[in-house]
């Protein structure tokens, strides 16, 4: 027994499964209820209302968060406006020091936050430990460095006239976070906004408001009061209050297309900029030469197809359309289906589990509906296709089998984002056919190209209408690689130095060093 205890990490059961947040021995403490994080303090909602927060792992409530109203958004905006001058004038050293300290604090609490994020979203802890949280840490460090290396410019217009260009903060911005990566997407938005000298009011997604509050606990004493404010509650009420507020200088949003349009409409009403990231239906293209050798590269390509199940398919760039060259389709898919059949599903807090729970009952309902539409349209289920029956504590959780459906690109399962572990697979004849199918979509966020032929990879990568084309890889999200959509997948980019421009005003000082009048009057 003593031996077992020695090898089992703190916060785990003897079987090596992380103990659920709030339970005795868990790494994650859970309060009975949470207020908003405003001005560096925990503030109860003005109307005193709270809403239950469920874990998709069990389908049961485990805490309550503020069910805020427009008044609470105003309080957060008050705090942000009170802080904006001092933060906007802080030195680059001070800003970078804060961002680096945020990164260090997240890193010091990496396992705790990884368990919290898994419990909040339903995603496997093996992903949050290896991807979500380390990437969030790195993102803050990236922008700590980026802000110090950002340069203005001076242009000598003529020998006595100089145009200086400075970056100035926008002031107070609003940011709306999606449910699929509650912490990483928050980091993607918060880090560049703060790095550029802005204060922010953040609204987490309604189904996932809690893990970001755990993050706030970790960094509450690091970020100056009012620089980061978090308000939880329903999108229709506080999302609207924030996005339509005349007191914000920019709105950032990740979500679906209709709300994206609504956000841009509100921004137009206030004449402010917006960044919207609105999803995709990303093609993942496998040319016949991937099967030329049975080697590490083929193994990687097979995993590349199976990555549609990453985060249970709840990824804007989910490689949800696999296009496989017909000459190798049977042999390649046999290998892929074998790999998919060995995906382990269960309690996401078990580090050996590869696929967890969908984020909500509503998501599960939608996924089931799409499988039904696919069958009506004549697609065939190659594997999966049903809810996963799990027993014990997981019986009411939202589990769906890793699924593959074969069909054609005109079917709705090939055209619409399912946001679940459902892959639509079809075949192509040649490179031109692959390109035609890849681009036959409303969306243009991501794509994958797999081939041993470098010239073909380059041609395809440049010809696919998408903001990111992963080439012989997929689902890598390093800070420093710009991310954003073509077509209806959105407007703007994230995850790159250029974000500092998106969160800054350009100030031009046009200076004459001459004593000579113009001579007009």
């Amino acid at each position, binding site marked *: 027994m003593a031996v077992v205890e020695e090898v089992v990490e703190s916060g785990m059961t003897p079987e090596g499964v992380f103990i659920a947040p709030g339970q005795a021995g868990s790494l994650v403490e859970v309060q009975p209820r949470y207020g908003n994080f405003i001005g560096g303090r925990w503030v109860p909602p003005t109307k005193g209302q709270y*809403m239950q927060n469920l874990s998709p792992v069990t389908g049961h409530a485990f805490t309550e968060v503020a069910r805020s109203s427009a008044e609470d958004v105003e309080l957060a905006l008050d705090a942000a406006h009170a802080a904006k001058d001092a933060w906007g004038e802080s030195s680059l050293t001070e800003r970078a020091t804060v961002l680096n300290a945020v990164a260090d604090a997240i890193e010091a609490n990496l396992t705790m936050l990884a368990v919290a994020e898994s419990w909040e979203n339903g995603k496997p802890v093996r992903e949050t430990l290896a991807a979500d949280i380390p990437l969030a840490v790195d993102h803050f460090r990236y922008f700590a460095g980026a802000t110090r290396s950002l340069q203005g410019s001076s242009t000598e217009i003529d020998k006595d006239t100089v145009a200086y260009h400075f970056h100035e903060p926008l002031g107070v911005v609003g940011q709306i976070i*999606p*449910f*699929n990566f509650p912490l990483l997407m928050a980091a993607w938005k918060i880090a560049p906004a703060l790095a550029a000298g802005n204060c922010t009011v953040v609204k987490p*997604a*309604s*189904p996932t408001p809690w893990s970001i509050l755990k993050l706030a606990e970790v960094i509450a004493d690091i970020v100056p009061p009012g620089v980061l404010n978090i308000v939880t509650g*329903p*999108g*229709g009420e506080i*999302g*609207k209050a924030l996005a339509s507020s005349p007191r914000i200088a920019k709105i950032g949003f*990740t*979500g*679906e*297309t*209709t*709300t*994206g*349009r*609504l956000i841009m*409409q509100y921004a137009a009403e206030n004449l402010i900029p917006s960044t919207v*990231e*609105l*999803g*995709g239906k990303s093609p993942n293209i496998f040319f016949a030469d991937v099967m030329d050798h049975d080697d590490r590269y083929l193994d990687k390509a097979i995993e590349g197809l199976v990555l549609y199940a990453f985060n249970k398919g709840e990824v*804007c760039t989910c490689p949800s359309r696999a296009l496989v060259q017909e000459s190798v389709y049977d042999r390649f898919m046999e290998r892929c289906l074998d790999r998919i059949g060995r995906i382990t599903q269960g309690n996401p807090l078990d580090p050996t589990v590869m696929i967890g729970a969908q984020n*909500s*009952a*509503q998501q599960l*309902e*939608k996924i089931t*509906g*799409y499988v*039904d*539409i696919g069958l*009506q*349209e004549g697609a065939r289920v190659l594997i999966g296709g049903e809810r996963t029956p799990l027993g014990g504590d997981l019986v009411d959780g939202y589990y769906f089998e890793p699924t593959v459906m074969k069909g054609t690109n*005109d079917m*709705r399962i090939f*055209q*619409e*984002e*399912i*946001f679940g572990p459902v892959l639509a697979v079809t075949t192509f004849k040649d490179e031109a056919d692959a390109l035609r199918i890849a681009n036959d979509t*409303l*969306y243009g966020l991501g794509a994958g190209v797999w081939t041993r032929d470098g010239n073909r990879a380059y041609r395809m990568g440049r010809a696919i209408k998408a903001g990111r084309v992963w080439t012989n890889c997929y689902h890598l999200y390093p800070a420093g690689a710009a991310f954003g959509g073509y077509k*209806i*997948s959105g407007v703007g980019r994230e995850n790159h130095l250029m974000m500092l421009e998106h969160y800054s005003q350009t100030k031009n000082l046009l200076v004459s060093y001459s004593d000579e009048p113009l001579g007009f009057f």
Partner: protein
Amino acid sequence: MSAPVERIVATPSAREAIAEVTADGGPIMFFQSGGCCDGSLPICFRDGEFTIGNHDVRLGTVGGSAFYMDHRQFEAWKHTQLILDVGAGEPEGFSLAAGPDRHFITRSRVFSEGEMAVLESAGDG
């Protein structure tokens, strides 16, 4: 003479919800969303809250409320009938609720060849 084919229909519970939400705060409208997160849901707004563009497609009305879709999305969806219904739980995004702890959803049914022919002959295929 064929019977008209509806692109959007509503279940009785959706009709009840529309009546309830309308009685509660005034007329409403629907816009079918796409993409990330709540992508496949119909977003319910107070009438006029969402600006309809020149190229949006009006699929019809349900319970007296107009139902719209983006014209590009319509091209990909036009072989299916949409059935407005109600599901359990609050809306996760910006949509109005379909009454307390309920949200609107769209189910889909693939049109038969006969129905598609009717829609095409009406210049609506």
